């Protein structure tokens, strides 16, 4: 069966004054695929998903989310995507359940649908035990879980997870991986990370971004074969060094 394209970018570029944050990015992501955008801080990962989710206007080029153009059909794009920003974007004084109801109210509208969807998400994300707890009292791991749950409650077709496990301890990270893993194939996911093991464990394909440019993309096996290196860390270092040799030093933000 032919897979449909969920995300397509064409020469997608973002400049902030003199700084080129994303440099002519050409990318396609199939429906149901999970793509990891891997790169050091300042590589352009967050800027890329900001442009794809309608939070930032591309300086040049464009992108399509399920056929909707991000520049011209912003409202339609916003109805298709969900985003879990880098910081835990939750309403601190609201309980877990209230946070979910709030986002469901914003994205879904219909009252009975909201109630059912909140219960569904509470269950699938194993948030029932903290449903009456205020968000500000939750641990980092629970907050991230809630943040992702809020991103998917509107039943988006495309989900952007920006550094979802940043700063979490190993146990909380593994638990969150399980939740993210469970979302696979139900929606198209772009995950930004600078944790090699995270990209390796979760993603179908890995895109390596260096200084705003997409340097390599493929499955781990394809990347290993292309670079002649073993393991994602070795592949990444090799790609980064090659890019650094071509363009001067690799910048770190």
């Amino acid at each position, binding site marked *: 069966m032919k897979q449909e394209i969920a995300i397509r970018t064409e020469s997608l570029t973002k400049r902030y004054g003199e700084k080129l944050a994303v440099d002519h990015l050409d990318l396609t992501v199939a429906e149901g695929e999970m793509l990891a955008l891997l790169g050091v801080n300042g590589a352009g990962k967050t800027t890329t998903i900001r442009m794809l*989710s*309608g*939070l*930032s*206007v591309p300086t040049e080029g464009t992108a399509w989310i399920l056929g909707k153009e991000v520049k011209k059909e912003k*409202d339609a794009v*916003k*109805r298709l*995507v*969900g*985003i*879990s*920003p*880098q*910081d*835990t*974007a*939750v*309403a*601190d*004084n*609201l309980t877990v359940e*209230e946070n979910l109801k*709030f*986002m469901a*109210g*914003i*994205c879904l*509208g219909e009252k009975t649908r909201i109630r059912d969807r909140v219960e569904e998400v509470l269950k699938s994300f194993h948030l029932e035990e903290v449903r009456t707890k*205020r968000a500000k009292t939750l641990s980092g791991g629970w907050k991230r879980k809630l943040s992702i749950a*809020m*991103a998917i409650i*509107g039943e988006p077709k495309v989900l952007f997870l920006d550094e979802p496990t940043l700063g979490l301890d190993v146990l909380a990270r593994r638990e969150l991986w399980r939740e993210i893993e469970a979302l696979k194939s139900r929606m198209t996911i772009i995950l930004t990370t600078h944790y090699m093991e995270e990209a390796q464990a979760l993603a179908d394909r890995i895109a390596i971004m260096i200084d705003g440019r997409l340097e390599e993309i493929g499955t781990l096996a394809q990347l290993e074969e292309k670079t002649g290196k073993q393991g994602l860390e070795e592949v990444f270092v090799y790609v980064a060094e090659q890019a650094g040799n071509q363009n001067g030093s690799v910048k770190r933000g």
Partner: protein
Amino acid sequence: MNRTLVFSKRNLIEISRDVLSYIFCVGFPLVMLFVMTLVNESIPKEAGMTIFRIDNLAGGIGIFGLTFVMLFTALAVSKDRTSSFLVRLYASPMKSSDFTNGYLLPMLIVAVVQALLSFLVSLVISWIVGYSLNPLGLLLGILALLPSAVFLISVGILFGTLFNEKAAPGLCSIIISLGSFLGGIWFDAESTGGVMLKICKALPFYYCTKAVRAAIHLDFQAESFWIPTLIVAAVAILITVIASLVFRTKMKADLA
């Protein structure tokens, strides 16, 4: 409209669970009501000073309380604007009008509750000090406060949009001092005359206080009630439109 109500509900819950809202929006105005009543009781009758008499004080405190609702609005908006929570909402189908109306509506509820409480306490104080306030006047006073509430809440939205969490409260404090002083809350502006009265009349705060005091006194003459009310309503509409436009512009800039 539905998204506005959903966002309003979220804001109302956040406010109701923040202890600062009780201190700013209820506690402080009530403390001032008690303190100024004590001041009034300490002033000899021969002085003929009536500005702190409960019938005048109640209206003044009503406006003074609203300036704290303004401060709280500015804090809430500026805090949201610096958080990634707003980033999430920017990526949702919410429009800029959903945001501004979503801040305005719950703050109006806070303003009405604040006015109800401070007028109820004023009524009790009036019984204690032996100056009977008309409950109907107080109820109409709450209605007369509404244009002022919209005006001051919109100033709060404007400041919260333009300035960050640290600058917005400081700037609001200037408005609180300026508004309560030049609005004739703490002195009788009418009795000053000259340049002072001209300055007071050039600013909307004077009309805010005048309209609500007139309503409490059941004085609905054009000069004392309708003209000040219309002036405040016009300013409220103007500031609300400006706040909405500024929020929309800032939102667009954030999404550039």
